[in-house]
């Protein structure tokens, strides 16, 4: 019995949303390094739902941003792309570049370099 081929849009949504969550976390982390006020606000975001967020510090808010942007973008992209078959070259390049950037944005020497510290 031949099974119907599933369009690759759902896979694109799953992987791109993972990258979006990680990149957002990297940007938020860099932002907390740049601004004390922003760091305090990020901590308040974590405090809104994570037990003992005060003990975790702004890290709790950064995890929250990762989680929210990842899940939210996954849901949105899933429904937008689920019936579509797309050429993967461009999404893969976006994924690799975005994930590499996310990695650099959690690496202190790179953050200090771009913030001119």
């Amino acid at each position, binding site marked *: 019995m031949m099974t119907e081929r599933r369009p690759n849009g759902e896979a694109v949504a799953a*992987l791109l949303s993972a990258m979006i969550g990680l990149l957002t976390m990297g940007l938020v982390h860099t932002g907390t390094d740049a601004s004390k006020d922003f760091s305090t606000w990020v901590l308040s975001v974590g405090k809104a739902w994570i037990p003992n967020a005060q003990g975790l510090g702004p890290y709790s808010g950064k*995890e929250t941003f990762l989680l929210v942007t990842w899940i939210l973008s996954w849901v949105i992209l899933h429904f937008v792309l689920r019936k579509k078959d797309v050429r993967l070259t461009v999404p893969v390049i976006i994924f690799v570049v975005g994930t590499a950037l996310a990695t650099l944005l959690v690496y202190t020497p790179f953050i200090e370099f771009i913030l001119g510290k």
Partner: protein
Amino acid sequence: MSSEDPSPLVTIAGWVVVTAFLALIASTTAPFGAFLGDTQYAVVSTVHGMLATLGVIIGTVATYLGWRLFTGKIRAFTDLRILSVLSALIATGTVLFGNWIYVAYRATGGPREFFLKNNPEIHEIFFEFKEFIALFTIPLSIAAAFIIWRYKDQVIGDRPLRTWVFIAIMIAWTALMIAFLLGAGITKVRSV
């Protein structure tokens, strides 16, 4: 195989019984508690470390199967399906327990204070990076597991998709290894 050979089931059952017996003797006679230390976070940090170690073992096998998937020569696709889910669960569990002990790391008199006073680079560069790179493992391993389960055998015949899945698995495994090795190194210098 001759008819006198024990069946695989008998062999495994025998091995489990003997191992359980030896483990029972060891656990009731050897002072394993001495390894854990006497801090409030002894058990939590042990679970974190053991989950991370398990994650390295399972993640490494899953990454090898991911490589086989990438090359189009995978036979044990069912194993990859199971290990992809296990990797995602273990990554999530390791991070949750890591969060728990991170509170102790940041507490007054904790390792963070010690590092900032004696060797700030260990905290500012290595530990900070470890804390964030460990988080990479969760969305990437969950995304890979989702695709492997959702697309089933279709992913084997779809070269661009299986390549992308392998890239995600490889990045997750690299992140896991960096976090694991940095965690081990930092704990060696100062633990919670």
